[in-house]
């Protein structure tokens, strides 16, 4: 599940918390600071690093790590 590690690194940088652990269940509901602006930052960072682009609808709908991973999977197939 290396995508999760990769995503975790991005979360750690954006939230500036090197100890942050994320699981597929981590979501806007249970992670403090994951607001709409952080959401945008995470998505833009993922896009730049993975060379993909979220659909307009996916930008606002992917509100948990599991959903982010699903979007990435859908686009990249891994």
């Amino acid at each position, binding site marked *: 599940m290396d995508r999760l*590690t990769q995503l975790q690194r991005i979360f750690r*940088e*954006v939230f*500036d918390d*090197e100890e942050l652990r994320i699981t597929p269940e981590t979501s806007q509901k249970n992670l403090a600071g994951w607001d709409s602006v952080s959401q945008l930052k995470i998505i*833009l960072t993922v*896009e*730049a690093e993975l060379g993909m682009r979220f659909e307009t609808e996916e*930008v606002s709908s992917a509100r948990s790590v599991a959903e982010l991973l699903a979007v990435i999977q859908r686009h*990249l197939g891994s």
Partner: protein
Amino acid sequence: MTVARREVVRFALAKLEAGEVCRRAAGLLQDMTGGDFEADAAAAIADALEAVCPDFDPALIEELSGDSAAQAFVRARLLNAWKHASEAEAQLDRCIDALARPDATTLALRARWRAKRGELTGAARDLRLALHLFPDHAFHLRTEKLVEKLSASVAPRRRCRLALLGSSTTALLAPVLRSVLFRDGIAAELYEGPYGAFRQEILDPASGLYRFAPDHVLLLVNRRDLALGPDGGVRGARESAAELRALWRSLQSRLPCHVVQTTYDLPPPGGWGFLESARPEGRRRAVMAANEELATDLPAGVSLLDVEALPLPDGITFRDERGWHASKQYPSAGALPVLAEALASQVRAAMGLASKVLVLDLDNTLWGGIVGEDGVGGIRIGPPTAEGEAYRDLQEYVRDLRSRGVVLAVCSKNNPAEAKAPFEAHDGMLLRLNDFAAFVADWQDKAAGLARIAAQLSLGLDSFVFLDDNPFERTLVRERLPEVVVPEVRADPWSMLAALRRGMYFEANQITSEDLQRNLSYQATEALRSASQSSESLEDFLTGLGMTCEHGPVGPTTLGRVAQLVNKTNQFNLTTRRYTEEQLRRVSGDPGWWCHWFRLSDRFGDHGIVGVILARAEARRLVIDSWLMSCRVLGRRMEDFMCACLVAAAVERGAIEIHGEYLPTAKNGMVEDLYPRMGFAALERVGTFRLELSESTAPRSLWIRGVLREEKAEGR
């Protein structure tokens, strides 16, 4: 990461299985050492290894023991994940030392680790260098918090208060702007107005804006504010712009602040297609009219930032429809670093922190090749090579900087005589020796050279930008003189020009008479110094100009420019006759005509083709049909030179006299007495003159060296 590299990494990661991790990863990293180091690729591999090897594993490190930057990077990441912080940092140092050119991501990682153990100065230095490399928007997002932390704990050069107001969300722009200013040693406290409410903020004296009391107010508008239909309406657009101008006045009447206003972006093609540009009221024309309204008589204290002039990197578009609809993001996230740089450049300028001195290397920086080895004739500058032409563009850019008051200096490892030779002897060079306020050519290291230049000019090194194609020199100067800005470039002229544009180092809010005076005085001083006598006469000045005039018969390559001059010159134009290019082609191919162009250059540069004479033969007489000269070169007595050429040509053709006429217009009064001044005698008919060639009294040109260029005229 390149697409190909990304594919390789993606494929390899998909195949990585616990048992095979070490060997496969090592092999993969070995593959990566062939090209440039790519931090994203190395980081993705480190992520994968971290996931499968969560605990300390010396055997894995043993497997990844290569010297490459990529392997050192992965070792560093793993050791850090295993909580071996100091060993991790040592590996990261090795990675950074092994890199051919600095890498923003790697530097930011070290900054993060240094900050964590309290080494804030070193962290700030790493991060600043990374930010000088113009990283993408994602880099800014990832380092935002780190910048905040360092900004609060490392003493800045200066502080300022910035308000960011706009009709779009500024949440992503603000941190990028803060980072860019942090890089320049400016600690910015930022205020973001409530979304879309900039009018209320400015008009309400009790608003948060006035409580914050900023030094600079940045106003970010976009085309959607104008709400234009396809046949937009120029008047409405102008009124919107006028309303913005009124807001500047309200704001500045309540608060003494510097305003940075962005222009409206041009809309994408709408349903009316190109008609939106062609019709008088078309949407695109309306936006241009609004921008024109903003720019006209710009008040002091307001900087206007043309968003269409932003030097966007390749592959980055300014517009992003998705971003607008999803989050009212304007412009695209990718364009934010460039926009932030532009805003910051105006803030720097207003604070007096813009760079002032451009120090240039010579070989492979101002020209292609090495003058000490290739000789003056062997270097590439100017046509015909593409490289030479690109270096010339670079020189033109640099010359434009100088004309605006930027101080130029040379710092080159060369023998002084060889370093100076191209400036004196190569006609492809635009820059001249006296364009430079300091000229260091020796074999000392460049840090010492820059220090000498700073002492000589009495200017601080923190106002210096140093351009050099050699990565060794750049690294040395960055390490020894961290206050000097050293743009990262590739060894080609295009990259250097792009770096200067992207850096916006020398931006000014306006051009003051002082800026211009600075160079005029340099020039005047130089002109007087180089004149043979010390008296301040016009003759001395003209001599000092070192003028050269190339001239020749009008032919295919010069026809376009000649037609342009013939059709737009009004002041120095004896007859103001206009001809189409086709008509000119015909007469220039006619042996009964003498059609000649004149091109002037002097030590301030090449002025291009600036003069034309068209004359036709009538028996043993040459009749001047047209004689004109661009007003750019008035006052240099080039008319004397042109007349001398004409006389020589007439004599060669066996003519005994030259006739000329002056047809007055509202604008050409300055040449009313040209023919008498040239020794022509007035004829009976008013405005007609004659010069007898038997005992010519035509003036000789004393100050201009002539070079005849024969081009085979195109036959009919």
